[in-house]
């Protein structure tokens, strides 16, 4: 049986209208915001493109060795990074990396305070939680449309979409980490006359740190995944290579770029995860 056509809500029209209204009213604001973000990103990108490749490879090698605890992991992480250069994708890789770094920095700057706010009251949790659920279940491509409309083509909307996609884990896990802190320890802090901020900084955040770091790890991984998709709206990098390869059905080119993304994902994941679990012990 067909659903009656006259029972119909024109939600698409409403959303379009709302979007138009936002653009007309806050266009200037978004332009300014976009410029600000762009400068921030360009700064980071410049840094990574300037960074001599041996320095980065050596740095990653040593860092992996220290946090993963074996020289072998240090060597293998460095080798993977070296391989990206061997494939001739170093520069594109650095662009991707800088986009990831920029979006993670902003995600954490937004996510950790939001997580703290969410942990501080059940009402806040009640408001933020469904929003996060929505953000995570919505197909990631959908974010590209408003990002495109607000900021046009290029790096800024890519970053914007990436942040929306990547920020929920760090918010959630900051919230969970703080709420997990044993009530008796908080009670003890209160009994000694601590203020809200003293409890937050001296008790809750230090104890929630391992959980928050897991959130940082997840946010980073999601940012990397989204950066690839964000290439569709003009972010240069490895994702764009994959996109071009798909369009032109160049399997080899796509494979190379895909492999580099996997390597980058492994490196970032291992290092950030080891940092998170190291603090847990």
């Amino acid at each position: 049986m067909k659903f009656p056509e006259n029972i119909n809500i024109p939600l698409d029209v409403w959303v379009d209208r709302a979007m138009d209204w936002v653009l007309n009213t806050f266009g200037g604001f978004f332009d300014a915001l976009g410029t600000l973000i762009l400068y921030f990103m360009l700064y980071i990108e410049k840094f990574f493109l300037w960074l001599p490749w041996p320095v980065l490879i050596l740095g990653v090698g040593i860092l992996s060795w220290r946090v993963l605890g074996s020289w072998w992991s240090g060597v293998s992480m460095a080798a993977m990074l070296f391989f990206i250069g061997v494939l001739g994708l170093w520069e594109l890789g650095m662009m991707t990396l800088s986009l990831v770094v920029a979006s993670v920095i902003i995600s954490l700057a937004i996510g950790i305070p939001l997580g703290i706010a969410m942990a501080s009251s059940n009402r806040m949790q009640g408001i933020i939680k469904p929003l996060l659920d929505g953000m995570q279940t919505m197909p990631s491509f959908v974010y590209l449309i408003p990002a495109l409309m607000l900021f046009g083509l290029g790096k800024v909307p890519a970053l914007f979409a990436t942040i929306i996609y990547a920020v929920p884990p760090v918010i959630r896990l900051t919230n969970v980490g703080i709420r997990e802190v044993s009530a008796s320890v908080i009670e003890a802090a209160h009994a000694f006359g601590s203020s809200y901020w003293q409890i937050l900084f001296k008790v809750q955040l230090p104890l929630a740190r391992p959980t928050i770091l897991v959130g940082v790890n997840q946010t980073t991984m999601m940012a990397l995944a989204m950066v690839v998709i964000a290439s569709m709206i003009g972010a240069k990098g490895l994702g764009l290579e994959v996109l071009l390869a798909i369009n032109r059905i160049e399997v080899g080119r796509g494979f190379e770029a895909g492999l580099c993304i996997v390597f980058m994902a492994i490196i970032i994941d291992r290092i950030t995860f080891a940092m998170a679990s190291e603090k847990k012990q």
Partner: protein
Amino acid sequence: MEKIIIEGLYKIFGPHPEKAMRMLNDGHSKDDIMEKTRHGVGVADASFVVNAGEILVVMGLSGSGKSTLVRCINRLIEPTAGKVIVNGEDVTRIGKKELRHFRQKHFGMVFQNFALFPHRSVVRNAEYGLEIQGVDTTKRREAAMQALEQVGLKGWEESMPDQLSGGMQQRVGLARALALDADIMLMDEAFSALDPLIRRDMQDELIDLQEKVQKTIVFISHDLDEAIKLGDRIVLMKDGFIVQQGTAEEILTNPANDYVARFVEGVDMSKVITAETVMKKYEAMAYLSTDGPKAALRKMEKAGISSIFVRKSGKLKGIVTARACRAAADRGEKNLAAILDTDIQTVAPDTPANELFPLLAEEPHPVAVVAEDGHLKGVIVAGSLLAKLSEVTNPENGSDLDAEADSESKITV
């Protein structure tokens, strides 16, 4: 001096306590109120004082409201009604900020599950209270070290709490409260999570420590033996109400009602009962300066005893037996000096009964209870000790005790 005064304190859990309060005042029970209003009664109409420098033990079974009560004192739990006056100031009336300062200045707290900060080393746990007061690093470190030394944790400063045993963790908890130099210590079942041997050690150490620091301590416990050992006075709670308050001995020998009596039943009375409570009045007494052997014999005969204490100018001098008196009388001696046995066992009035058993087993004569000034207060014979013990441990057998309890009980449910 009264340090803490609690007056008509109520704590009702739930959004609308007014109705529950009304029902409570109409005499409804805790369960009844829970069923009808969905409100829990934590503390109901509690009034008592804590004197400066004493250990007051608030005792009751779980759910009796004792932990709620102690949290109302420093307002970790907001009381529904009533007054909590500490150092003359009503804690229930002060604002949030003043409350924080008040806690910093006056309350050290020790928790059942230790509640240490797991991410801080032992010394940083101990200095926490001073750190949040903004005391500078060297000063607070010094105070923390001193507190740790007091609880016997010198050398463990840099350890993390999870590297320590339960007993040591609670020492850290104690040091954290001591380092503050607050005048009041709130101890919420501080030793309940420890195994019995460690618990006993900690109790002994708390008593020693208290001699030195002289804090006002409110100690929560569900263990009557602990309450008796530590408490200068005991407040006994049931279902949010205070059922009896007084010294250990008052409560034990004179339970206010059946509930207290049942609670008290399990206690090892021989630790609680003192020589003074079990001694018999000593009516027959020979006087060294006036009585000869014949007079002494006559007194013994009259009282139906085989030996008699001898005193001179109000002080106990010794004992003579009937046999020795008869021999002396036969020899024609005129006074008791020659046959006086001065090597007699005496005990102070506050000696616990369990220390009396071995003495009674060794001594052929009754044990004399002698006050500090040498004055004979009474005697203990094995029979009277056992009789008294069985009487207080099985109140239903001692009918006179029940009657006494009914007439003298001040607070009843």
